[in-house]
């Protein structure tokens, strides 16, 4: 087997690493800032969180388009053969869920900001259109929607990471290296 052929494309690996770090950071900052009292720090974190959210949304779109244009390598036959049916199904469902939430979470955050009367101006320079009206009731619905969608994404990321670690340390099937930057073990 040609070890290079089973790897994800370099762009996919870079985007995976970048978005992985961004999402973990966004989740931590999001949890922390929501409980802060009204202060300049809170305002700063909220704005940085919004700007980073737009970056996540944009990179996720690039990532999805790249995935469609250049589909990822199939699971190696050796790995697939050892996976029970439920794992193969869960593998598919989890990835569809992750991609849905990559878009849903930032979009809900954007909508929540707009509904609360705070238009998004990326990096304080590029104004984005509001696609929901300023409405207190709507904002009250979008806030928990953004929060719980983010929890769902965090949950799926945990499942995703646990599964990857299981393949690496328990099954020792080298699956993890397909997303890595080191030498491929296949």
């Amino acid at each position, binding site marked *: 087997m040609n070890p290079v052929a089973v790897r994800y494309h370099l762009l996919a690996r870079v985007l995976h690493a970048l978005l992985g770090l961004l999402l973990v950071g966004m989740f931590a900052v999001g949890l922390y800032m929501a409980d802060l009292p*009204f*202060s*300049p720090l809170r*305002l*700063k974190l909220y*704005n940085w969180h919004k700007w980073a959210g737009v970056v996540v949304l944009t990179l996720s779109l690039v990532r999805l388009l790249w995935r469609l244009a250049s589909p990822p390598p199939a699971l190696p036959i050796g790995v697939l053969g050892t996976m029970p049916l439920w794992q193969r199904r869960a593998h598919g469902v989890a990835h569809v869920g992750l991609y849905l939430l990559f878009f849903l979470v930032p979009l809900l955050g954007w909508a929540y900001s707009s509904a*609360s*009367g*705070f*238009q*998004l*101006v990326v*990096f*304080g*320079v590029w*104004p984005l259109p509001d696609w929901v009206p*300023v409405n*207190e009731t709507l*904002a009250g619905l979008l806030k928990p929607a953004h929060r719980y969608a983010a929890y769902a994404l965090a949950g799926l990321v945990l499942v995703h990471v646990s599964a990857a670690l299981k393949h690496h340390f328990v099954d020792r099937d080298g699956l993890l290296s397909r997303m890595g930057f080191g030498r491929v073990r296949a």
Partner: protein
Amino acid sequence: MRSFVLSATLLAASFAPLAVSVSAQQLLPAQSEIGFVSRQMGAPVSGRFKTFDAKLAFDPAKPAAANIAFSVDMGSATLGDRETDAELPKPVWFAVAQFPKANFQSTAVKRLDATRFEVAGKLTIKGLSSEVLIPVTLAQTGAQTVATGSFPIKRLTFRIGDQEWSDTSMVADAVQVNFRFTLTGVPKL
């Protein structure tokens, strides 16, 4: 005697419109608004005052004699977001407990053209006063006159957003004030 009473009545009647037109000028609050737009880290944030009142004596033909006074209930400010609204009355922002009202008192009114006027006056917020120049455009339909305009103020002039909030890279110093007042009893333009 009868002709004297009659002529006196006629005389009074002929002056009445002028007297009434100035003293009976009223602001219709339900059809009026005072809004403002500030910027937080580049993002425009608009708010408005729900309660305000005016005392007006204004004849478009005699702008120099005009007297325009407004008072704004600072506790009635809203950004439409409950969490932020709860902050506005605090000492660092509007200090509503100490300074419940902002006031405007005109000092000079100038007519620019058929519908546009320039109102100079003193704006007092949080106990601090500053001279402002307010462009006003009037439009009349029936008995109502709608006055619209917009002018910039600097929030730090009035110590709005004091102390840790004085950093203008977070909250810009410039705040745009917009208004639309519906008035009755203003003489014809």
